[in-house]
């Protein structure tokens, strides 16, 4: 169960820094995993993962608790249970798909997923030996999604997962999220557009 409470930060949700991307409403969705989950107020994907982002200004002084223990006290376990799909994929353009995902897998030795299956699911099997730099933006985004699937962790943090994806890709993402949540996983997503997903969600709007 993940609970987040805002700290004595800016109360109206406005970030003190300027937002380079589109201003306006951002919708945050989350689907609960096993047991009741509550995500209060200003929870944004990047902020929870604990890394730098303009959104973090909103919850900089907030606190995140996992099973009632603050995250700072169990950072390693927390990181072991999550995967972060950020806007900048963190994949290396000079390396091939397989080389990139091999690296990710060796950091999480316990993954049980079959890579071939995942490639099939995401439609990138034929791109395996290609260098990432030569792939289109949409294809690179699919590789990032593959990375997320392969990590085999319960908690997904997704920042604008629909960027660069066509309609098929977007449907695929929603399918993956639904699958994940129905098997007991949890997903925290920050997205610009309205997303219809067939799982119980908590929505937070930030203006």
């Amino acid at each position, binding site marked *: 169960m993940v609970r987040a409470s805002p700290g004595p930060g800016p109360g109206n949700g406005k970030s003190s820094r300027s937002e380079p991307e589109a201003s306006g409403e951002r919708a945050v969705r989350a689907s609960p995993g096993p047991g009741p989950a509550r995500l209060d107020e200003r929870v944004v994907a990047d902020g929870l993962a604990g890394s*730098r982002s303009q959104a973090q200004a909103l919850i900089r002084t907030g606190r995140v608790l996992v099973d009632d223990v603050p995250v700072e006290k169990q950072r390693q376990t927390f990181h072991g249970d999550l995967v972060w799909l950020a806007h900048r994929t963190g994949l290396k353009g000079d390396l091939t798909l397989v080389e990139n995902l091999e690296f990710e897998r060796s950091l999480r030795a316990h993954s049980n997923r079959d890579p071939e299956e995942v490639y099939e699911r995401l439609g990138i099997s034929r791109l395996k030996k290609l260098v990432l730099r030569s792939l289109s933006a949409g294809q690179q985004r699919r590789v990032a999604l593959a990375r997320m699937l392969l990590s085999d962790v319960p908690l997904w943090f997704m920042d604008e997962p629909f960027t660069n994806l066509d309609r098929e890709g977007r449907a695929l993402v929603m399918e993956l999220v639904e699958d994940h949540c129905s098997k007991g996983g949890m997903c925290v997503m920050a997205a610009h557009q309205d997303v219809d997903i067939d799982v119980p969600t908590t929505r937070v709007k930030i203006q």
Partner: protein
Amino acid sequence: MPGIFYGLAATAKRDLLLAWKRPGDVLNPLFFFAMVCTLFPLAVGPSAEQLEFSGPGVLWVAALLATLLSLNSLFLTDYEDGSLDQLLVSPQPLPVLVLGKVLAHWLTSGLPLVFVSPILAITYRMPLSVVGVMMLTLGLGTISLSLLGSIGAALTVGLHRGTALLSLLILPLAMPIMILGANAVSLASTNDVYSTGIWALGAYAIASLSLAPYATAAALRISNE
């Protein structure tokens, strides 16, 4: 392999793979090293005694500057493409991942310097026995340089004009290493006892190995929070 070193091996392997695909990044500092060694005789004259006398010092200064050049890009590409952020949320302890990166950095900058230095040393009329000492000091010294330099690189990653600042931060850290290394070689060239310098360099390397990764990890978290 014990669990904790998964991260070290994985990051080292990835960086080595990346260096393999862009050999220019490895060769550039080496050419720089050679060029600096060329500048000195051109500037102060090629007299034999001068060369022999200043050889150890010149070679060490050139090696230091070349390492400084290569340290610049230690975290730069990772910062730009988002992999640094991913390293920060990895389940592996950050000091271990840092050590992996520094290992790869040393293998692609320090170690090549060690093997290229004899060529330049001979042009400075260094006798072969002394060349051996030179390679030893460079080998030990570049280990410490890579480790300490990673602290500076972590503090300045993503900063505007970070390159100049990096040099300013690292040079005071690098000075003792250079003093020890260059003077050990000078002592060797006059057939004096030089073991103090070697032991000190070794101690420096071990101390850096145990402490620098933590400082670098702390600096990375601070720079990227």
